[in-house]
């Protein structure tokens, strides 16, 4: 299991860093006396062991990827915006009811080009998770997203969405205010947008809550992200009345990036550093940036009608 491997890798990371620091701050006198000689082989052994462990991460199971997709250390929407975009101007509220912080959105520049960026916001620690409702939006979140997208269409801005949610929030108020209607409206409206829409599945994409931001011309997916009709736990509990069989569900559901690319749902898989995106954000951003630019350039060549047509066809052919 990747969980155990990562645990050991993280322990090694800590040990290696500690050893390096100890080495760096060592009194030069020690070096002269040959005192640090005892540490060096240790360091090498540890690094070798770490490389060996990370090399085991090349062939991950679907359950491993689900674990990585939910890893607390994965980059979050604010980091994507900060690194990939400039001049971000946040837009809040759905103009009807309230501001839903589970979705972050606004205008930004991508390589100088004004775009609209929208994404699920999970937060990267427990306090933030609670504030952002673990990235589970209510209808207000989807309506805000739609407002921003219609505005993007009006001003001819491409739309880039980032998907990372365990699902739309199943709460009382969410139902009262029409969670289903809000998602349905987004699906319908997004399908007809006359500007390029690119979705990036960055973590877990579960159910209609993910799709509500995901009707795109091109879908990019990080190597260890997952995208499915429901969480594996929910899937197992519905089909087998036993949520503990989620591991088994992961293997059946074909929810990994490579599965989805084979099925023609995802256009490109963005490679992640060995052991997952949480280990090296920078490497991930470099790969994603290149892909994003490529896809955006490609889509920007199409006219409004052609874009809507391409998007319609993409979804039209999924299934029978």
């Amino acid at each position: 299991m990747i969980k155990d491997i990562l645990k050991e890798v993280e322990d090694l990371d800590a040990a290696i860093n500690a050893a390096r620091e100890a080495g760096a701050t060592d009194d030069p006198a020690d070096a002269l006396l040959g005192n640090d000689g005892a540490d060096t082989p240790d360091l090498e052994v540890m690094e070798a062991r770490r490389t060996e462990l990370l090399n085991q991460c090349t062939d991950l199971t679907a359950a491993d990827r689900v674990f990585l997709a939910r890893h607390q250390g994965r980059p979050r929407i604010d980091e994507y915006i900060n690194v990939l975009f400039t001049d971000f101007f946040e837009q809040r509220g759905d103009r009807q009811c309230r501001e839903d912080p589970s979705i972050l959105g606004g205008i930004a520049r991508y390589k100088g080009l004004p775009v609209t960026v929208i994404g699920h916001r999970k937060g990267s620690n427990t306090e933030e998770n609670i504030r952002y409702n673990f990235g589970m939006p209510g209808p207000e979140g989807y309506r805000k997203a739609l407002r921003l997208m219609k505005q993007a269409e009006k001003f001819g801005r491409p739309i880039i969405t980032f998907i990372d949610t365990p699902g739309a929030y199943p709460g009382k108020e969410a139902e009262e205010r029409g969670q289903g209607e809000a998602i349905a409206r987004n699906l319908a409206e997004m399908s007809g947008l006359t500007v390029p829409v690119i979705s990036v599945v960055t973590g877990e994409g579960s159910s209609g809550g993910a799709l509500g931001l995901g009707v795109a011309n091109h879908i990019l997916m990080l190597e260890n992200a997952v995208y499915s009709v429901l969480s594996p736990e929910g899937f197992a509990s519905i089909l087998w009345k036993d949520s503990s069989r989620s591991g088994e569900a992961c293997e059946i559901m074909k929810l990994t990036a490579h599965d989805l690319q084979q099925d023609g749902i995802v256009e490109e898989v963005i490679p992640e550093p060995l052991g997952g995106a949480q280990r090296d954000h920078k490497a991930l951003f470099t790969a994603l940036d290149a892909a994003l630019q490529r896809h955006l350039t490609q889509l920007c060549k199409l006219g409004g009608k052609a874009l809507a047509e391409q998007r319609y066809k993409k979804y039209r052919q999924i299934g029978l």
Partner: protein
Amino acid sequence: MDVGKIFAVGSRERTFQLKARRDAGLDSPRWQPPHYFTCKKCERRATRQTWASTLYVCPNCGHHQPIGGYYRLSMVLDHGSFRELDAELQSKNVLDFPGYDEKLEAQRAKTGLADAVVTATGKVGGVPVVAAVLDSRFFMGSMGTAVGEKITRAVEFAAKKDLPLIIFSASGGARMQEGIFSLMQMAKTSAAIQRFQAKGGLYISYLTHPTTGGVTASFASLGDITLAEPGALIGFAGPRVIEQTIGQKLPQGFQRAEYLLDHGFVDQVVPRSEMKATLTRILKLHTQGRKHGA
């Protein structure tokens, strides 16, 4: 249903009426001992014949029982106008889900349906329409690739022929056994509806018990006119999931048709006995005297 009518027209109508009678539990030609059917709400029982005469609305408490697809169409469509679309289309085991093929077979044998939706053209009060009915007996009316494709084809057909569209929803949501493909049907059907409506098409969404999950979050919520059957459960998340999430009991009547009416998501709650008359009225409001600007 009028038995005399069955033999008045051709074999297509005869087959359709027989399917409707089977849905209504009246398919046996021979006399049988009275077959009792118990109301799921008040638990009073009555014979199948009594139930059929009240359109499967409980004669005691007025509870609307879920009914089969052909049976519902037989209530709505004018006699002799039924033409089924894509009758043969069936789901495939796209995920190689263990046991799914067998289950599909069993559901087909049990219900006589190819999948969980019947799509057809016909006339309602003389107005030609395209109609789709989800059948909750088949895998809880869940939307897999076949349902998504049939709905989409029906919508596209309505768009092409410039006909009004009526969809009767009854569904537990996306079909889990078809995984991500089921999820994508939400986008596919919604996109088709969007195009149809942008072209000026009229879409009446009729929500029946139960309409939840991925169907609520796609075509069922996109009607120009949204009607609901009394007492129907309509929502995105199921009540049990919500109770588990928020850790408290939900109020009486939560997510029922009347509740949605109060919260602004339904135009009218229409009892089954008035279903056809109401649909006819709406259709005529859209087709007759539409000179201005048309």
